[in-house]
């Protein structure tokens, strides 16, 4: 390295690295430290208890329940969001008629792009509050009101939505209703992400395929999807993070933040309960640390599995 460059680089990096260490890495370490204590959160008294919190965590029924609910979201949120986003992106970019001008999206795709992206500009809480009105569990709710009017739902037995613990395909109904919101609010962003990626695929590849007689189905599965592999894989990891969170929706939309009767309990709601209601910050930190480890492992695994040679156009 030329003389002075090292100093130059260090000068630029020192401050951000220091900030990062202090505000991100240090709290991380502190949380790990607290997870080995019985700290209650309201005083400066704490006792070292070793790995007790972690041992306790393994036999906590609530955590087991929360774990499976998070696993449900982990599978479904990325799957449905990516599927929907891919479909929309495909239709908006290459799904339309092909004519002399080349490949294009369906009619009015510019407008659709704005509409589908719209949920992304709303804060999650706004979304949750809005859906509370849509999901309102009597005749005044948007969905219930409509379905009761056209006679599909009995006025004496309206859909309970997020107040419904009855299993559907083995999973409490409340989770499916939350999933719908998560997919609705997330699909727009990934649609834009995939659109950008699709636009970087050269048009002549498509034109060649069409000349060879490939229909939309084949163009999508044989050309678009394989060439989007990298983007989809990144999206999968991001959506995995979102699926392991889901706190805002559960907190705002479900009865007693994880109900009814624990039917929508997730890691974050269990952490919230232990730290802020039960006053067991040490134990809550242990759950948070476990969740962090779980997340990192998952992301590593995910990126490992999907790693492949890059295709250069």
């Amino acid at each position, binding site marked *: 390295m030329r003389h002075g460059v090292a100093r130059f680089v260090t000068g630029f990096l020192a401050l951000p690295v220091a900030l990062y260490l202090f505000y991100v890495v240090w709290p991380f370490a502190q949380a790990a430290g607290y997870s080995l204590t019985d700290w209650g959160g*309201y005083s400066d008294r704490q006792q070292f208890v070793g790995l007790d919190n972690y041992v306790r965590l393994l036999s906590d029924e609530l955590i087991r329940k929360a774990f499976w609910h998070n696993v449900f979201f982990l599978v479904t949120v990325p799957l449905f969001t990516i599927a929907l986003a891919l479909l929309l992106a495909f239709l908006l970019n290459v799904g339309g008629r092909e004519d002399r001008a080349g490949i294009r999206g369906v009619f009015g795709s510019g407008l659709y792009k704005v509409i589908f992206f719209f949920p992304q500009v709303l804060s999650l*809480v706004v979304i949750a509050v809005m859906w509370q009105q849509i999901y309102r569990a009597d005749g005044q709710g948007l969905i219930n009101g409509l379905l009761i009017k056209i006679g599909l739902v009995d006025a004496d037995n309206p859909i309970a939505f997020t107040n419904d613990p009855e299993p559907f395909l083995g999973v409490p109904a409340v989770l499916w209703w939350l999933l719908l919101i998560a997919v609705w609010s997330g699909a727009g962003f990934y649609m834009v992400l995939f659109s950008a990626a699709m636009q970087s695929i050269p048009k002549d590849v498509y034109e060649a395929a069409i000349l060879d007689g490939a229909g939309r189905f084949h163009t999508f599965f044989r050309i678009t999807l394989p060439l989007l592999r990298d983007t989809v894989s990144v999206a999968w990891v991001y959506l995995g993070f979102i699926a392991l969170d889901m706190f805002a929706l559960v907190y705002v939309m479900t009865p007693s933040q994880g*109900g*009814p009767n624990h039917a929508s309990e997730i890691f974050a709601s269990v*952490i919230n309960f232990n730290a*802020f*209601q039960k006053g067991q910050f040490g134990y809550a930190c242990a759950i948070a640390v476990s969740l962090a480890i779980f997340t990192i492992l998952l992301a590593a695994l995910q990126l490992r599995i999907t790693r492949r040679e890059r295709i250069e156009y």
Partner: protein
Amino acid sequence: MSVSPDLNRRTLLRRAAAAGLLVTPAAGLLSACAGSEPAKNDDTGGAKSKDNPFGVKDGSAVKVVVFNGGLGDQWAKEDMAIFKAKHPNITVNMSSTQKIKTEEQPKMATQPSDLVMNSGADSMDRSTLINEGAIEPLDDLLTAPAWDGEGTVADTLLPGTVSDGTQNGKFYVVNVAYTVWGNWYNAALFKREGWQAPTTWDEFFALAPKIKAKGMAPYVHDAVHGYYPRWALMAGIWKSAGKQAVVDIDNLKDNAWKADGVLKALEPWEKLVKDKLLLPGKLDHTQSQQAWLDGKAAFIQVGTWLKNEMSATIPPGFELTLSDYWSNPGDKAAKDVYAGSGEGFVVPSKAPNKEAAKEFLRAILSKAGSAKFAELTKSLASTKGSGDNVQDSALASANALMKNAGPDLISVKIWDFYADLDKESQNLSEELMAGRLTAQQFVDKMQAAADKVAKDSSIKKQTRTA
């Protein structure tokens, strides 16, 4: 007590961060509450006198945080004026919020406010505060002279206020409001229809078909917040099985939930659900209260803050009237009323100006302060005679109910004592109201949950004697 769990984005994000959003789990916020130097308390103080029993130092400042929920915060500003009239040289920094826990908890271990109204859905767990030594015992406030009356502060309080604020033999929480719970109905409607307000479950079940015939549901409930139906269930258990049964439940005594009368108190609720006497739909507290005001249901059970909370949408001619929870023949304490003090103030142990905080409490509990409280909130204050000069039908029916009350006030501690049982009892109450549990299953599951807490060594045990 009367608070909708509403949210704003900032709080939610903060809460989300605290609860461990993946990338930076709990850590960020947790570290903010990490222990450090305790605030230095300079104990020089001012001279003590009858007008200044705690020796508040002239020229000092006191920070007061008020919960701005169903009762608003105007009454607290009136108290501030009363305080300033006696202590013009003490600066009062008053702020009001709905997010008590979110804003105050992180400061508790280092630099807390002097006086905090720990109330609402976002309040700090009381047992934790006490177990961690985070709040100050206030027994000297009780023995201090009253602000503008005869005797001590304790003499001015309504029955139950001292014991409601007492834990482990010390007085920690100063409740300023007094609430009466029961079944509400519209007296004007009942008069028009010639219906008699029931006092027993049998009378209710006899009246229910007549109400249904008018196209009205006999009962509506909050299906979202489990602590709403729980008030009614626990009041029923007290009436049916007697005070000792509830004391045993609170003390986690073996088979307390299996005591005589507990099941009997819950069976009418099971029947009410099974007979489809509830308004269909899963409404929350304000939605269900509005449905009741709209005449969709005849009865709703809730506390006396109802009128203040719904004041904007009460139809003209609607006479909100409170009646006692219904009882069964053979109940052990049918006349006992569910009433008690609520909206509690606490003084953090590390508050820099505890003397002024206690002095401010004395002003809140003054005659002038409590009268303003009742006038502005249409709720009783926890001091005697606060509502004497307020004209209001809802308040009058609550007063009448208190006059005919039995010897004991119904009070339940279990949800203050144990967060686990708080959550479990809320969940199971809603399950019972949704018809997914029978009364018997409710009892069995509560017993199992109580046994689990009793065995859990990480949970500090509490006891109540009265």
